């Protein structure tokens, strides 16, 4: 692969995400609800036993929620939304618990709360995570759900549930496909070859 010439580094402090970029992310997500309860941990989202053996995106996606809901991985469709209770993603810091859903095409997870590391991994790996307890209370599996990112509101069963706005940064990261890609874009390095990452261990 030929390396394109890298454009100069720092592009300034203030980088805002334009409305058209938000549109790239899909300003409106329309899907079906997969509803789960409180305290769903990373082991049931992506079992630890596969952490070192399963590496391909399709394979990772095939194990999503395996120990929580065996039919999920085959029946979930791109654009579907997971709606869950408190402390979604507690436990291990393994990033596959995020990427398994992303590779499956899950558009967002709406929860009452997220475990701290899961939340950061989610945004940094480019998965939309929204905290909205009221919408979680109202949602049932199979419901049609609409997430309107321009107005920060979830539409469900004929009602609207507002959620706190995501910062341009969080949206920008998700839109770019993750933190490293986002930073590269922000610094004008997008399109150049990514140098292989050493073991971040």
């Amino acid at each position: 692969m030929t390396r394109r010439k890298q454009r100069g580094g720092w592009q300034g402090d203030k980088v805002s995400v334009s409305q058209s970029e938000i549109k790239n992310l899909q300003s409106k997500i329309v899907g079906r609800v997969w509803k789960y309860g409180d305290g769903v941990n990373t082991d049931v989202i992506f079992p630890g036993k596969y952490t070192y053996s399963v590496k391909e995106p399709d394979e990772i996606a095939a194990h999503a929620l395996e120990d929580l809901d065996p039919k999920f991985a085959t029946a979930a469709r791109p654009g579907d939304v997971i709606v869950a209770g408190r402390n979604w993603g507690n436990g291990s810091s393994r990033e596959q618990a995020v990427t398994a859903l992303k590779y499956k095409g899950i558009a967002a997870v709406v929860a009452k709360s997220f475990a701290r590391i899961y939340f950061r991994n989610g945004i940094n790996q480019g998965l939309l995570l929204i905290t909205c307890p009221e919408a979680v209370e109202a949602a049932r599996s199979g419901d049609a759900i609409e997430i309107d990112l321009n107005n920060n509101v979830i539409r469900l069963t004929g009602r609207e549930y507002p959620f706190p706005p995501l910062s341009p940064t969080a949206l920008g990261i998700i839109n770019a496909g993750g933190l490293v890609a986002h930073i590269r874009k922000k610094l004008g390095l997008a399109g150049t070859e990514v140098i292989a990452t050493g073991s971040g261990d």
Partner: protein
Amino acid sequence: MGSTFAEKALARAAGLSSVVAGQVVDAKPDVALSHDNTAPIARIFRAIGLEKVAIPDRMCVTLDHAVPPPTPKHAQNHVEVRAFVKEQGIQNFFEVGRGICHQVLSEEALVLPGQLILGADSHTTHYGWLGAFGAGVGRTEMAAIWATGELWLRIPESMKVVVTGRLGRGVTAKDLCLHLIGLLGADGGLYQSIEFHGPAIATLPLHERMVIPNMMAEFGAKNAYLPPDEAVFNYLAERRERRAPLAVSDWQSAVSSQRAVIQEMALYPDHDARYASTHIFNADNIELKIACPHTVDNVRPLREVAGTSIQQAFLGTCTNGRLEDLAAAAEIVQGKRVAAGTRLLVIPASAEVYLDALKAGYVQTLLEAGAVFGTPGCGPCMGVHMGVPGSGEACISTANRNFKGRMGQPDAEIYLASPAVVAASAVKGVIADPREIE
């Protein structure tokens, strides 16, 4: 509606007039901390495609986790860190033996009240003792901070912990933390900013205050906060003046100028701030506590586990390796010997602590009792070297974590306690109450 400490501190760091819990902001940390992990972070940084970090002046790098290096691989890692630090022109770099990151940055007054410090270390919560917002981040995130000078943060909800009364004889901040974690669980403060208030907190000496936010990492917290007061301002003012003197001839007026600037930066929550929950404890009722294997929330009163046989007692770490901790231990072992079949390992949290303990005679007292001293740093806290327990052994430690295998040997038991309990246990060879030693 008023603001919590977290809302005020992160609004300031994000350059906004106000923020609310749940909101995500781009915050510019005043300090970005990394340690022996600086080399792997540097590799991620290079993968972003940059040559120079954006914020060399805000970076602090310590070598503390494996010092002096136990293997050629560890030594090579340090070589890489030094090369990176030199190449990037990072002034705040602390060599092997200077001490554990959180102790060193405190001693050097590199973090001030109301500031934001992000560290590639989970115990970066530590800086809450001086009224700063400290949070741990991942390695990729630290590389991103180096590249851009900022990081996205979600404003945490806050928990208010009010501690009334006063801790009883021999009861320490460590016991208070274990009490709280035991009661509400290792995820009791998940994602939250934990604010400590009340007379029992305000009357704590500084070395005890330092324990509390450090331990809150084991409570699931994002950060923790103690309201800074005169004692904190004085500590920082003197140290700041020593490190970077103002152009004022007389010491007293220089220190008071420093203090005025520091005090001005302090942030306090509003009286009508909104808390997710409030917990009120009476310090008078808190007993000596032990965290039993293999989780920090497996907490029991000391009296229930007293008599459990131990082979190693470890006094040190960023939680409890300070001068006053060594003093408490020296007082217990004075004129006695470490029990046969038991070893007492002492690792001062910093070179400064070591030297002060030497001058005060604590080092001699501890050595005469049979203690073994290690180089200031993390030592065996996370199982790399310098005193890891063997299979089937039990270690009582002043550290903050007792996960299975934390000290290197999954088949070893780790008990967590205060420095005096650790010293008393070393003398008895079993877990013991320091108040019952002569």
